[in-house]
């Protein structure tokens, strides 16, 4: 048996390089003759450009060039859309307004690029920004999602009749029927706040045109190197293989690094070719806050129909989704909201409608969670409201309605971000609920601990919620696996790594087939010169899609190696074993051949070529799932609230997660920890806030509260279940977003329980002491 490294917590291959400061991040790339770019951004949220004067900036010593939309001539054009609108949903409306790389006639959000300075140093480039004068005719700011759709509102895109960007209705069963049969229909208006991806490394790109080879070398922090390369090729009229797109080490992604057709990838390569010098742009933190992308920000009008015995008959949810000034990422985020609303429960009737709205705000694209937390927040808040109305416990109503294990595969009837019906592939949701209740000692807390605390005047509450995580969506990924003459293995793929540990987990998959050490597998990710088919890092799909492609390719390479060894050792394949980098005859261990020697022999010399020959111990494979694999879990939290300061502290946090086969359990836990941190940030600390004029007032870490070490609970209590996905040979599901999804919903349930005497009704996904004070005050006066 070849040793398997699957489900083993192996130390990461990439760590020594990262820990010693030897990894190359985007801003570490310095090329001879390199020039630096700084971007002039609009200070106005909404206005018609009257004039844009760059003449003074151009005169500054050290400034090489300044470009505006006008200077780009015919090269300027919007888009394309990065994700097309869904065609599979009947009756859906989508008004495509892809990004403008640089504003031409109008500015549509504060932070939108209007000019680009190229200079000998970044310092000089930034100096020059102050000498560019933008004059606009101010237009009314569109920021309120509901008012934006009222007649008479200013229009973000004046060629449209309204600010409606899309309208999508989906219904499974019949909401009307649910209402007719229900004993209670409870309505809630729920608001979800807006958060930043806030990777510690900002975005960046370096482009260098090699005029002899006619090759554009590009390094970018993109989560989707191949889509970005293809977009650049289309813009510049180059063949795809004239652009070598490379991911350097990337300092976190969390979503916003997926975007292309932005100013960086449209303009920087163009300048590099025009000036014949390497160009670097590295975003600063203020730009990241103002001009990258961010997410959440929805307003839900939701209803739940229940019977007196706690049976949920139906849910209706009509929600406004802020897409910002453009909608380049299609419907991905709100479709995720639709597919993640009822998915934990057996609810026969579900009506859901998206109203996507254009506003004068930064563009919305996925941030870790990507629409899922909103759906879960709505559902779980509705469940809490129903439980309260019926006088039953939050746990009881969940137990009663949770989807049962025999229901899988479960057809939801709701089309998701991959444009096919959401099918929950496998799972055991009640088990996750019970495991969490047991771990957090729910009954003991409610029956023994909490009454004592309350008697002492202390405020401590508990929350338990369920979540699903749709992961591993298509379309596809691919990889190539090759054994080198040294006996070491090379894996190349076009994914993108921002810290998920792929240099180790992908190696574990290949090593498990090829009988080598994990440290002897070299993984190349995101170098289009080495591999050029794939889509990118989003929707927790890397391990499942790329991992499966690597597995399949490794199986082929293994077969090739064994077949060749069989010939050379004169022994049938069944009698061979592959371990420690050599193929041996199992019963005659002294007869063996190393993988390196096999690789050498696999490259035929003159006179040895047989018909149908494929050289090399090498194989490629692709994997495109029919639909995504759905992870799931349950979150429990005990929250202590200081009644005087309204400051909550998480006393315990238990999560049960099932992501199918965990390839590296240590890394799975790490993903969950990081997700929980973002969820806690969202529930209590982080908020992107625009003022009434469309100015972002939280555009630095002074005002945007980034969750710090002391803001976390002492311990994340992570429990696991393993329900392998039937969709792929290793049974993997994704886990990258799991931790982030359920926290706000759980937090609010626990908070209401802690402050039970005020009978709070928390209707937003983010709270803080000041808001809490007002909730309590309003509750007292009610």
């Amino acid at each position: 048996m070849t040793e398997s490294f699957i489900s083993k917590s192996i130390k990461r291959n990439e760590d020594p390089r990262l820990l010693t400061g030897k990894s190359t991040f985007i801003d570490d790339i310095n090329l001879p003759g390199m020039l630096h770019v700084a971007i002039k951004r609009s200070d106005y949220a909404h206005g018609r450009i009257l004039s844009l004067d760059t003449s003074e900036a151009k005169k500054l010593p050290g400034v090489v060039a300044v470009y505006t939309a006008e200077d780009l001539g015919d090269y300027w054009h919007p888009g394309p859309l990065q994700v097309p609108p869904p065609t599979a949903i009947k009756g859906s409306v989508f008004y495509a307004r892809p990004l403008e790389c640089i504003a031409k006639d109008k500015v549509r959000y504060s932070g939108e690029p209007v000019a680009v300075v190229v200079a000998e140093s970044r310092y000089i480039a930034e100096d020059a920004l102050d000498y560019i004068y933008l004059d606009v005719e101010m237009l009314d700011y569109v920021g309120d999602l509901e008012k934006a759709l009222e007649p008479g509102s200013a229009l973000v895109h004046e060629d449209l009749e309204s600010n409606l960007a899309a309208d999508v209705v989906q219904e499974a069963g019949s909401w009307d029927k649910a209402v007719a049969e229900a004993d209670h229909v409870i309505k809630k208006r729920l608001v979800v706040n807006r958060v930043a991806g806030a990777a510690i490394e900002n975005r960046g790109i370096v482009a260098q045109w090699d005029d002899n080879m006619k090759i554009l070398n590009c390094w970018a922090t993109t989560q989707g190197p191949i889509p970005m390369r293809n977009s650049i090729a289309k813009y510049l009229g180059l063949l795809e293989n004239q652009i070598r797109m490379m991911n350097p080490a990337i300092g976190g992604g969390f979503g916003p690094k997926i975007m292309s057709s932005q100013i960086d990838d449209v303009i920087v390569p163009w300048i590099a070719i025009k000036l014949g010098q390497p160009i670097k742009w590295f975003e600063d933190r203020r730009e990241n806050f103002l001009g990258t992308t961010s997410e959440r920000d929805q307003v839900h009008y939701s209803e739940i129909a229940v019977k007196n015995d706690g049976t949920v008959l139906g849910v209706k949810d009509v929600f406004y989704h802020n897409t910002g000034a453009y909608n380049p990422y299609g419907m991905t985020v709100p479709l995720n909201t639709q597919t993640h609303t009822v998915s934990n429960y057996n609810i026969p009737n579900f009506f859901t409608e998206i109203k996507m709205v254009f506003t004068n705000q930064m563009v919305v694209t996925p941030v870790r969670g990507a629409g899922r937390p909103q759906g879960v927040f709505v559902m779980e808040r509705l469940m809490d409201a129903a439980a309260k109305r019926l006088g039953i416990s939050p746990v009881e109503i969940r137990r009663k309605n949770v989807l049962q294990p025999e229901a899988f595969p479960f057809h939801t009837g709701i089309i998701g971000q991959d444009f096919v019906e959401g099918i929950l592939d496998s799972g055991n949701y009640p088990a996750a609920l019970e495991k969490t209740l047991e771990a957090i000692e729910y009954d003991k807390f409610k029956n023994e601990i909490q009454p004592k605390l309350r008697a002492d005047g202390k405020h401590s509450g508990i929350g338990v919620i369920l979540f699903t995580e749709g992961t591993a969506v298509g379309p596809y990924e691919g990889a190539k696996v090759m054994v080198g003459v040294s006996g070491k293995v090379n894996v190349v793929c076009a994914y993108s790594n921002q810290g998920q540990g792929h240099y180790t987990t992908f190696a574990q998959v290949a090593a498990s087939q090829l009988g080598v050490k994990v440290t002897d597998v070299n993984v190349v990710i995101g170098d289009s010169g080495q591999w050029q088919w794939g889509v990118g890092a989003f929707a927790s799909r890397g391990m499942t899609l790329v991992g499966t492609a690597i597995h399949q390719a490794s199986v082929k390479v293994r077969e090739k190696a064994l077949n060749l060894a069989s010939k050379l050792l004169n022994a049938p394949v069944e009698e061979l074993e592959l371990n420690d980098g050599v193929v041996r005859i199992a019963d005659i261990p002294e007869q063996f051949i190393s993988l390196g020697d096999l690789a050498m022999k696999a490259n035929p010399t003159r006179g040895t070529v047989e018909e149908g020959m494929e050289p090399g111990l090498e194989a490629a494979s692709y994997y495109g799932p029919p639909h995504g694999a759905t992870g799931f879990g349950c979150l429990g939290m005990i929250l202590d609230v200081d009644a005087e300061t309204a400051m909550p502290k998480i006393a315990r946090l238990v999560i049960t997660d099932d992501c199918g086969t965990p390839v590296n359990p240590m890394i799975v836990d790490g993903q969950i920890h990081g997700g929980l941190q973002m969820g806690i940030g969202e529930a209590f600390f982080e908020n992107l806030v625009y003022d009434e004029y469309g100015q972002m007032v939280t555009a630095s870490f002074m005002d945007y509260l980034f969750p710090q070490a002391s803001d976390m609970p002492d311990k994340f209590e992570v429990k696991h279940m393993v329900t392998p996905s039937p969709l792929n040979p290793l049974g993997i599901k994704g886990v990258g977003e799991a931790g982030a999804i359920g926290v706000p919903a759980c937090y609010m349930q626990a908070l209401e329980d802690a402050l039970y005497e005020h009978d709070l009704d928390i209707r937003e996904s983010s709270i803080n002491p000041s808001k809490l004070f007002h909730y309590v005050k309003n509750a007292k006066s009610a």
Partner: protein
Amino acid sequence: MADKVNVKITVNGKLYEREVEPRLLLSDFIRHDLGLTGTHVGCEHGLCGACTVLMNGESVRSCILFTVMADGAEIRTVESLGTMDNMHPLQEAFQEKHALQCGFCTPGILMTAVEFLDGNPNPTAEEAREAIDGNFCRCTGYENIVEAVQLAAKKMAAH
């Protein structure tokens, strides 16, 4: 543009004499003038801590210091710790505890921890957590970092 200023700064034991603009940030000097790119820049506001280095033994945010302010000083960066083949116990502990994911904030956290463990060779989890509170990490949720700092203390005591 102001005249350049001559500075003498010792970085990781090596003396560098350079002409710099008075406004040049210490982080840019370390990264781009000296090519020591292990020190990272995440916010340029002195808040995220990615650029943390030691100046005369004390942790500082190199993104909010001008290079001229470090004239005559001794600077230590992540490159002064171990090498890939022979890591510092702190670096080993970070790998063993999975205390890094993307690794971008890590050099700043390591330098913060070097100073901390110097003054507190046997910290409690609470003390370790407090010590790294000023360093932002988006990937790990901090728990593994706290454990790694404690493990490093044990490793260093055993050395």
